[in-house]
């Protein structure tokens, strides 16, 4: 117990409290910090980069929740049925979840770059008129990154849904058979309500994961074009190490944590309230 408490005290609680303190200072990382009150927070809310990074991250998070949940649930239902070769299928769909983000980013740059493989294939098939610049187009780049987030995360979420499906007692379905409940009714009345704990967990991980998005846009787009894929975590990194604005960087960090905290708490309340007791 004691070692874990020490690690958590020294490397979670203490740094967090210091971060909160520095967020009220004009610290540049080297000289003595001066207390400036709420100035950093005021500036942050007027900081167009920060506002845009919040807009971007909301796009990715909402997109991930709205699209990953149904897709991974469908995948889980299929992979939990008596389909042949389901363990091989589970392996294939889970594969992107165990590969590092930096490798994934490099692969997708090769595929999606302006002169990349996807455009070449489209050209050769003769269906493309002009090349689509997936990583340099204001409208399309966020969608391209969202697609990669989906591809990477859907297998992982499906594993949790499969676990949820397997924890549903079989006799409930037998009772439903007797009552003549089949197909869609069976799903909406039994399967889905009893899956709510899995929905809670999957959504929680999607929110806390996507709001911290860092490696993927850093390597693939460096936040661009413009700032349409800039994320708050990238912004903190830039503020701390490129502009030497250490105090301001901690302000952004604390504010981001506050947002994650509030959204996670709201989500847990919302989905927990829909959970039913077995």
């Amino acid at each position, binding site marked *: 117990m004691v070692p*874990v408490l020490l690690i958590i005290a020294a490397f979670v609680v203490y740094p967090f409290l210091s971060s909160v303190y520095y967020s009220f200072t004009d610290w540049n990382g080297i000289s003595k910090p001066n207390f400036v009150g709420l100035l950093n927070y005021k500036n942050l809310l007027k900081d167009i980069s920060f506002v845009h990074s919040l807009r971007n991250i909301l796009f990715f998070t909402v997109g991930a929740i709205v699209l990953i949940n149904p897709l991974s649930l469908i995948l889980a239902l299929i992979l939990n049925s008596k389909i042949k070769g389901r363990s091989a299928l589970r392996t294939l769909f889970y594969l992107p979840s165990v590969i590092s983000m930096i490798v994934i980013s490099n692969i997708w740059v090769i595929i999606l770059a302006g002169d990349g493989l996807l455009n070449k294939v489209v050209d050769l098939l003769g269906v493309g008129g002009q090349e689509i610049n997936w990583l340099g187009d204001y409208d399309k780049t966020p969608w391209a990154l969202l697609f990669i987030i989906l591809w990477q995360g859907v297998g992982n979420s499906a594993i949790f849904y499969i676990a949820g499906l397997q924890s549903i007692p079989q006799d409930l379905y037998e009772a439903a058979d007797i009552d003549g409940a089949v197909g869609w009714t069976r799903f909406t009345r039994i399967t889905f309500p009893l899956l709510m704990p899995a929905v809670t967990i999957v959504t929680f991980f999607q929110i806390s994961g996507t709001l911290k998005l860092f490696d993927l846009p850093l390597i693939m787009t460096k936040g661009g074009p413009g700032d349409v894929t800039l994320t708050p975590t990238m912004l903190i990194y830039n503020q701390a190490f490129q502009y030497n604005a*250490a105090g301001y960087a901690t302000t952004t960090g604390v504010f981001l944590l506050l947002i994650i905290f509030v959204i996670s708490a709201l989500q847990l309340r919302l989905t927990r309230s829909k959970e039913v007791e077995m």
Partner: protein
Amino acid sequence: MKVQAGSRILGTGLMFFVALLFTVPFIVLILSSFKDEDHIFDPFYPPDFTNFENYKMVFASPTFVPAFLNTIMICAITLIIAIIVSSMAGYVVSRSKERIFKWMYIVFVFALIIPAQTNMVVFYKMGTSLGMMNTIPFLILIYLSGNVAYTSMIYAGFTKSIPRQLEEAAAIDGCGKIRTFVSIIFPLLMPATATVFVVEIFWYWNDFQGPLIYLSNGDVPTLMLEIYNFKSYVGTLSYSVTSWAPVSAICVVATIPILLFFLFTQKYLLKGLAMGAIKG
């Protein structure tokens, strides 16, 4: 019946087709690592599987082998410490009847959602004032701080399935608390240890942010940092912006060990993830 069997075969075939589409990016990566730079973006150019030029470039980088060894060392040490400290913590948290458990649980969840960047500046300052910046021990401490909460929660969940009578019996036989834990409890927590082992290793192996920030002077490379820096390394050799062919090769080399690990442990990994989620 016949129609049903037919549609089942069709459905299975369709799922395998979708799964194949899912793995296309990895196939692209492997093919790219066997192409020469001029044909990297030519989808129908046949790769030459006897041409290991790109792989030779990977091993020619002076930092590649140290990066590989560092990564293995970081994974091993972090895992051993995480298993030792969080098995004890999880056990105590789950056994204590006091309200501290509820309080600890909140701290654990908090530690779980806090972004690495929130405390980045303070960590950086701590590392500098302790003289530990750009060292492996410091990165390991950062990893532990980010993960012991999660691993302790896994251990706490598994401890609930161990009957209390075992400890009482041990106490009667004169076992001290530490002896009871080491010789009775820890062996019984093996399933939790296996879960922690297979779940956590991907995190340490694949992490890029930690080395990017805390090993930033480049004296202590890790594999993911090596991939990142390799782009500019090969860039200076071939005078192109990014030499994707050798970069693909290094991505393949850095992925093979963890991929093999995944293929051999996937049964435990997928089961462990699910169990952790239900018990946690």
